[in-house]
């Protein structure tokens, strides 16, 4: 996990570009300024915040609060304000999705492992294995208040579904205090902007277009973003095929099985990155009805099937 943490700063035509790696993703910040000092400050501020959140909520890092909670063995674990707010948010997502989105579902990853290179699922779990684990997925069994949490023994929390998007929004809040220069924070494709570029120009963000051109070729589409955020959920590479059925890597927290007939990925826009991310995830969880779900909600989206 411990790659050497370095931040690169490159001068571009109309500003600076900051690059670093966090949360297993390439991260970048674009800032429209010629002021190198300011760019350095932003680079430090953003990278520090993203790494802070990674360290605090990674379930792979033994020292993280997430690991402390997961290894609490059914005992009370003290939490701080930030964690309390994240739990509150997760609770609301659980309610809004009717239980489909559940941050205790991470434990299912023990049986559903997708090869990081080929994307395929190497081992297809048996119903018995899943039934054993699904008893450990139930947000309703978690009790928490502003100062502490009790997670039943063997259950696990996974902030992976919201952590990156939360980090994007946190960074936007922090850099807005530092500068009012136009700025974009992109953490592995989940991104947000502080506002339009100079002269009220939109940021041009390339996303993969769901439709094909006249020759049937998939096309990248440029989205003009002046305010707000954009997030993508799903991973086109991670899937498994069994008896002709293609399973995506998004798991149904109620059944423990992957959602079938879902788009490979969904991109949505919202005022904040965490909203965009949840909307995309909730849509994926609707499977075949993903696009219809978003259309009914009047949400701007791009789906890739």
């Amino acid at each position, binding site marked *: 996990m411990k790659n050497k943490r370095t931040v690169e700063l490159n001068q571009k035509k109309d500003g600076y570009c900051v690059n670093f790696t966090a949360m297993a993703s390439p991260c970048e910040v674009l800032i429209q300024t010629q002021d190198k000092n300011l760019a350095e400050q932003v680079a430090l501020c953003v990278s520090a915040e993203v790494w802070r959140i990674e360290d605090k909520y990674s379930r792979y890092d033994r020292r993280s609060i997430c690991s402390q909670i997961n290894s609490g063995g059914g005992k009370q674990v003290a939490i701080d304000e930030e964690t309390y707010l994240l739990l509150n948010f997760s609770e*609301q997502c659980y309610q809004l999705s009717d239980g489909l989105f559940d941050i205790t579902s991470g434990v299912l990853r023990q049986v559903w492992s997708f090869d990081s290179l080929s994307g395929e699922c190497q081992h297809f779990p048996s119903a018995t294995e899943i039934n054993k684990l699904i008893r450990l997925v139930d947000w309703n069994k978690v009790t928490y208040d502003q100062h502490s949490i009790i997670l039943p023994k063997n259950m696990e929390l996974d902030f992976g579904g919201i952590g990156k998007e939360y980090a994007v929004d946190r960074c936007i809040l922090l850099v807005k205090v530092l500068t009012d220069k136009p700025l974009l924070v992109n953490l592995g494709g989940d991104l947000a902007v502080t506002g339009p570029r100079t002269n009220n120009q939109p940021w041009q963000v390339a996303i993969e277009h769901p439709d094909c051109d006249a020759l049937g070729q998939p096309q990248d589409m440029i*989205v003009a973003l002046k305010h707000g955020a954009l997030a993508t959920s799903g991973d086109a590479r991670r899937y498994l095929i069994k008896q002709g059925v293609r399973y995506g890597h998004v798991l149904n927290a109620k059944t423990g099985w992957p959602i079938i007939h879902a788009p490979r990925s969904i991109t949505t826009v919202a005022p904040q990155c965490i909203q965009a991310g949840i909307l995309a995830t909730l849509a994926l969880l609707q499977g075949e009805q993903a696009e219809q779900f978003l259309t009914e909600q009047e949400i701007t989206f791009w789906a890739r099937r």
Partner: protein
Amino acid sequence: MAEKVLVAVAVGVTNDMNKKVKDTITKTNKKINLKASLSLAASALLGTSVVTAPVSHAKDADEWQFDSAFLVYSEVDRVSATEAIIAGTKTFDNDEVLSLKLTVDALTGASANGAIAQPMAQTFTRPSGNGQYVTPAGETPLDDTFKDTRVQLNAQWAQPLSDNITGSVGGHLSKEYDYLSLGVNGNLAYDFNRNNSTISIGLSYFQDTFTPEGGIPKPLSSMLIGDSSAPDWDAEFAKTRIGDSDDKSTADILVGFTQVINRRMITAFNYSYSMVDGYLTDPFKVISVINFDGIAQDYIYENRPDSRVKQSTFMQTKYHFDESLLNTVADISYRYMWDDWDITSHTIDTRFTIPVGRASYIEPHIRFYQQGAADFYQPYIIDDQKSVDFVSADYRIGEMTAVTVGAKYGVVLNGGNELSFRIEYYRQMPTDAGFVDPNGLNGLDKYPVVEAVIAQVSYSF
């Protein structure tokens, strides 16, 4: 001390928000409120104020959204019109919307002058007084000097005035060779019941000035027919005129109510009250004065009352069917109009938008219109009934049935722009007004059918 109070308030707000989110989840169809609920949840998490507006700014289009259309309307043997429209809409940061629309029409062709067909050729003086035209025996008299170009400009500004009130104001300018129309309007809309219901009220006022070539004819005076190059022609023609121009004003009030029934159905109800005052007569229309044999003795200029009060009610329902009916959107409306000229009309309009594949749709359209006659409508006057106050033989205020049948095909192009084609057939069938016709009119078409074809190409970008 102050700080503590602030903290307490902040906590209170967060609790309220949580409560609102939960209420939203339990009480109503959560699908409708997902965006709002998430927005509340995210602001509680990040400690920011609720942001909802900017979503609409993430558009893959430019800031201005344009619609353009080119339309051809062609009546069989009569008027044809071509119309070009370009409309632009721009949404600003605080949800203000500016809409501008420019329409240019060109009209050419012939229009019925009001006189009735005769078993012999008929001669009429042009509205300008310069020259004559002859209608062959057995044909409905048409004035073929109809030619005009109209330029119309509309501007509308809409903005939220509070969380649930939207206001808008607009202006209208329309200029033709012989006509000028100026208008202003204002509208307020109030959303309530979680934005599922909207009440709106609108006011508009128009001031029109008509300056027909040849001036305003003296109502009920006889059309001067003779040698327009004779030395006393101009003086004689001037005696049938009462001025160069006249005007009218129109004030409208519209009250509307829109209700979302469920996620598939929306309904709207409108009521409008319209007062028109001033010159409402058509200066180009005459009426035949015939003898008991049915032979035209004279043509007199029509005369209409100088005020009209029009009321109408309108109801509309849109329903979005599911896959079992191909995700069709049905749009059905009914309008009932009545006025103090005794005209009543019923309009039923239905459209079905049927998606075809992922990016196109086909939209069949059927419109049915039925109208009763104005109380002063007459297809002609018999010689000894000449002492009328108000009279018009204009087929447009007679009893009639009209049907429009057509279809539109729209396709969303690769860049997200929409191209659509519309073709429609219109047929207007006047009803026999029930007069016992003199023998001389036997075999003549007193209530000619009007047919038209409408073709339109639209492009939104």
